[in-house]
C-alpha cells in the first residue's frame, strides 16, 4: 500500500470512528472544522486511481462550458452561467460548507489538481448550463466522492441552486 493510499485509508477509518462516537450535531460541527482545515492544506498530495477518462471529453478553458477542465465531476448547473463564476456563488446564494472532492487533469499545464466541488444554496435551481460529468465520481456509500446528493443539505436553506469547482492545489503523484 503506497503511503498516500495508507493516508487515505487511515483518514477514512478515523472519520468513521468519529461518526460512530458523535451526535449528528457535533459531527457536523467537527466536520466543518475538518473541511475548513482542508482549505489550508492546498497541496494535499492525493490522486485517485480513477482520475479517469479525461480524454473522453474535449477540454475547454471556458468556465461556462461543461467541458471546462475543472468540471470533471460536476453534476448540476454551472454557477458561471448563473451570476457566479467557476469558483464563486451567484449573488444572494450561500456556499455549502460541506462538499465532494475530485481530481481533474488540466490539459493546459499538464497537471492534476485536487478539486473541491461545492453547491451554492438558498434559491431554487438556476436551470442554466446543465453539466453532468462523473470522472472519479462514486456511489453514495462513498459520500465524499459522490455528486448526486444535495450538498446544500447542511445549509440553513438547503435549496440547491448551482455548483462550483474550486482548485485546492496540485495533486502531486508519482508518475508510473
Amino acid at each position: 500500500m503506497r503511503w498516500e493510499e495508507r493516508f487515505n485509508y487511515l483518514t477514512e477509518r478515523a472519520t468513521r470512528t468519529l461518526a460512530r462516537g458523535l451526535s449528528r450535531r457535533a459531527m457536523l460541527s467537527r466536520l466543518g472544522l475538518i473541511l475548513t482545515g482542508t482549505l489550508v492544506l492546498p497541496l494535499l498530495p492525493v490522486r485517485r486511481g480513477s482520475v479517469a477518462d479525461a480524454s473522453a471529453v474535449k477540454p475547454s478553458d471556458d468556465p461556462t462550458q461543461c467541458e471546462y477542465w475543472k468540471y470533471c465531476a460536476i453534476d448540476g448547473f454551472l454557477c458561471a452561467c448563473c451570476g457566479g463564476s467557476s469558483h464563486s456563488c451567484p449573488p444572494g446564494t450561500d456556499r455549502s460548507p460541506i462538499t465532494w472532492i475530485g481530481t481533474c487533469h488540466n490539459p493546459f499545464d499538464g497537471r492534476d489538481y485536487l478539486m473541491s466541488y461545492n453547491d451554492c444554496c438558498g434559491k431554487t435551481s438556476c436551470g442554466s448550463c446543465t453539466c453532468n460529468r462523473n470522472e472519479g465520481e462514486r456511489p453514495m456509500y462513498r459520500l465524499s466522492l459522490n455528486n448526486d446528493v444535495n450538498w446544500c443539505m447542511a445549509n440553513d436553506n438547503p435549496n440547491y441552486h448551482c455548483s462550483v469547482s474550486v482548485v485546492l492545489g496540485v495533486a502531486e503523484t508519482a508518475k508510473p
Partner: protein
Amino acid sequence: MAIKCKRFLQWVVCGGGLFLSLCAASRVPPLAAETLSEETLQFPLSPHSVLIYDEAFNNETDARLILFDADHNRKLGQMDAGYYPNITVAPDHRNVAIATTYWSRGGHGARTDVIEFWDLSSLRVTSEIVLPSTRLQGPPTLYHLAYSADQRFLYSHALTPAAAWTVIDLKTRQVVGDVDSDGCVQMIPSLTRRLTGICESGRLLSVTLDENGHEVSRQLSDVFFNDAVDPVFVQAIPTPTGVIFLSHHGQVHEVDLSTAAIKLLPAWSLRTVADQAWRPGGTQLGAIHAARHRLYVQMHIGGNGSHKEGGKEIWVYDTQSHQRVARWPVNTQLYGDVIATHVTADDHPLLILATSLSKILTLDAVTGRLLPVKDGVGQTPWYMVNP
C-alpha cells in the same frame, strides 16, 4: 367597370355563402350545455399504469409524481411532490407516501419536512406526518423511503451527511427515532422488521427492529464488491426474494433477503468477451419481470465516469440461465438515451423507458416491439414504479 363587376360578384358570393350557412345552422341542433366536473380514476388501476417520478430538475421545488396509462399513452393525473422527494407505494397499493420538503415562501422561508400520504384512487392527500429536517435529498431510488411489509412502520432515509434510517410508527403517527446506519445507504426492507443497506466496505449492513421500532440486532454480510475496482450502483433492482445490484462493469450481484441469513448469490456478468466496452448506466438501470424470469438493462458503450450515461440498447436476460436472450437497440437520435427502465408486473408486460429527451417509450416486453411514444409527460422523468 370591370372592377365594379368583380366587387358585385364578390358581394353575391359572400352573401350567398352566409345565407346557406345560416340555413344549415338552423337545421343543426346547438351544443348541449356542459357540466363542470372532476374525473375519477378507475380503481384498482390497470396493471399497465405506472408512476413516473419527474424531478423537475430546472425548478426542483416543484417535483411531481405522474400517473401514466401506458395502454392509452396518456396521463391520468398527478401528485405534487415538492423538493427532491422520496417516494414509496404502500404494500396494499392503495396509497403512495411522499417524503418531501416545503418552504413557507416558495423556495425560502420556514422549512417543513413532511411525509404526505396520497390516496391512489383519488390522487388527493389524506394525511401527513412531519419529519425532522434530516431526510436524504438526492436522485430517486426505490429505497430512500420504505414501508415494513405489514405497513406498521415507514422508514425514511436521513443524510446530514451522517447516514441514518428514521423509523416512523404508523400506528401512533410518531417518529420513533433514528437507526445509525454506520455510513451505509439505501434501506431495503425484508422479513417483518429488517432493513438492509449497502456499505463502502463492500458489505451489506442489516438491522433488525423490535415491535416498537427500536434496534435489536445488526449484522454485516461478507464482502461482495470492491468499490476501488468495480463500484456497485446503489439503485438496487427488486427480485421476488430480494434485490440485485449491478456494478459499473456489468457484474450482477444477487442478494436473497427472504431468510434470516442473508445470502449472497454467485455474481455473473452482463457482458461476454465480445462486448466488454458495454456498461449499464443512467438513473433507473433496469427492471425484472419475476414471472417471466426476465431482466432488462439499459446499456451503453463507455468507460470510467460514464455510469450516468443512458442506454443505447436494452439487453434482456434470462434470470435463471443468466444468458442474454435479446438486444433491443433504441433510436437514440430520435428519442434520446434511455435513463430509466421499468416493466409492468402482469402477464402481458410492457417495458416502459424514459429518455434523456423526456420521452416515454412503451415496448412490448416480450417482443421488444415499439408501441406509441409519448412526449411531454414530464420535464425530467428519472424513475418509474408500479402503483
